[in-house]
């Protein structure tokens, strides 16, 4: 695993990828976002735990808040097009803030490990209190047909007990 610095063109490609997908997710173009995923994508958010011990915040090894694959992500996105997407009607205003991007090359595979911070602001009028989801993304990007695709996303959420009705959006 070797680090890729901002001078490397791949770093700019990664930023472009992250900003582009954020734009799609924030502008109601989830269907186009699906095209950025590898067919065998793994999309998970392990359950954060509030326990004593290591300096590191801990996460459950078995339980997840999200445990998705391409088929289930398609269902989530398709659901938004039905008349029964109650948790997203009216649609939220969503803003993904992506920062602290660190990129490294996975030995041999040509795939990239991308770690970033994500802060997602979600508001639904008429409620005045927004939902804020903060976490670290650990992504694996793979080049398919000349373009980067998301092969894996692990989301380490920063809040063990969230004060939200539901998490009906993609992080």
């Amino acid at each position, binding site marked *: 695993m070797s680090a890729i610095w901002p001078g490397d063109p791949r770093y700019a490609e990664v930023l472009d990828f992250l900003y582009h997908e954020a734009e799609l997710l924030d502008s109601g173009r989830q269907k186009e976002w699906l095209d950025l995923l590898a067919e065998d994508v793994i999309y998970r958010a392990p359950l954060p735990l509030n326990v004593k011990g290591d300096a590191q915040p801990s996460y459950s090894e078995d339980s997840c808040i*999200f445990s998705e694959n391409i*088929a289930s992500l398609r*269902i989530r996105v398709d*659901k938004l097009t039905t008349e029964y997407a109650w948790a997203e009607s009216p649609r939220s205003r969503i803003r993904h803030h992506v920062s602290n991007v660190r990129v490294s090359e996975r030995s041999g595979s040509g795939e990239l490990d991308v770690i970033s911070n994500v802060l997602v602001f979600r508001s639904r009028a008429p409620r005045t209190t927004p939902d804020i989801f903060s976490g670290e993304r650990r992504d694996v990007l793979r080049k398919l047909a000349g373009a980067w695709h998301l092969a894996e996303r692990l989301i380490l959420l920063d809040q063990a*007990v969230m004060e939200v009705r539901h998490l009906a959006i993609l992080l």
Partner: protein
Amino acid sequence: MSEDGQLLRFDEGYVSARIFNDPDVHRRELENLFPQCWLFVAHETEIPNPGDYVTRQMGEDPVIVSRDAAGKIHVLLNVCRHRGRKICNEDSGCATHFRCGYHGWTYDSAGQLTGVPFINAYGTTIDRAQLGLYEAQADTYHGLIFACRKPTESLRDYLGPMAWVLDLLFGRTDGVEVGGPPIRWVADVNWKLGASNFVGDGYHIFTTHGFSTQLGLHALKPRGSTGAPVGHSLALSHGHGASLVSSPSGTTEAPFFGLPKELWPELERHLDAEQRHVLEPLIVAAGNVFPNLSFLDTAGHTPEEWGGPPWPVSFLTLRQWQPKGPDRMEALSWLFIDKNTPAEWRAASRECYERVFGVGGTFEQDDLENWASITEGVGGDWARELWLQYRMGLDLQPTDDWRGPGACYTASPPFFDILERLFYQEWQRLLGAEHGQVLR
């Protein structure tokens, strides 16, 4: 609410909108209702070893559920006897003792006060034996730990015929275990809306979860089944209720909730013939143990459609709705798995559950949205005049051909509000808000 403060018109099937967002009602629930009920606090497999503990809630009181050095389970008020600091702020762990962070009083895992710094400063005015943590009575059923502050009957009597239903789900094999820690989140919802939905609101499914039909998913209509599923709703004691939905006869592709064949001999050992007969064609079992513990076992999701394996799977979940004020609750969601389930089946069951339930669950999110919108909608003054409709099946009579416990109701379409009416009747009884009694 009517002029005289009535909250429920049981015979007519009306529930006052006021009960879903009212500080007085909420206060009375905490003072009168929760202390009298046997409340679920944890499953034994969450604290398998001496010293293991989890922190939970009884009403709005924080408790520690701990297994002492000798293996006995204690349910302790998580509040220091000295000056009231919460003693333990972790969700779970393993400890020989709990030390209060304020002045250092120390309690063992049975709740006994074992250490007081500078104890001589108290002279003779302190008796450690009298200053253990407050403790509730605890008992278990199939590893489900319940606790009660002011019990008037045993857990077994409190569960009554609900025990028979719990047998089918939690006592059918050599044991169930939690699939991990619960998913927890806090929502702007009155807790009763979750409980009453699970006890008997089959009516909501087609609108609330309508996306699944619109997308052509098989939810609630397992592959290979033809004809309408058959529903049996069981009115049990104490406001408990359960609905059992079976495949139309002869079309069961996945008997016993699709549990792996390896487990079938265990069913023989643990269930009687009648229970096996009921369990065999089941595709959904849902209900609520009064007041706030809901359960669901469902084979109503076809894993293949969600990118899972081509064979049938079900999942078993417990969900608890903990009050946090008149218009807020903490939801807890556990997955349960029969102990000897092979790894592949386990993984598939977990995935099905995690896609559907929890804060991000594709089904649960819409329930939460609805319940939150009710809580908000009835929070004003005008809406309190509303009498909400729990009026389906007012004159429905129990069926005769049911050999299990309780009164069994069935109808086509399978919608009636009997179990919810009984839930609110018990709620009203424990609240001490009988007919005519005026609230502050």
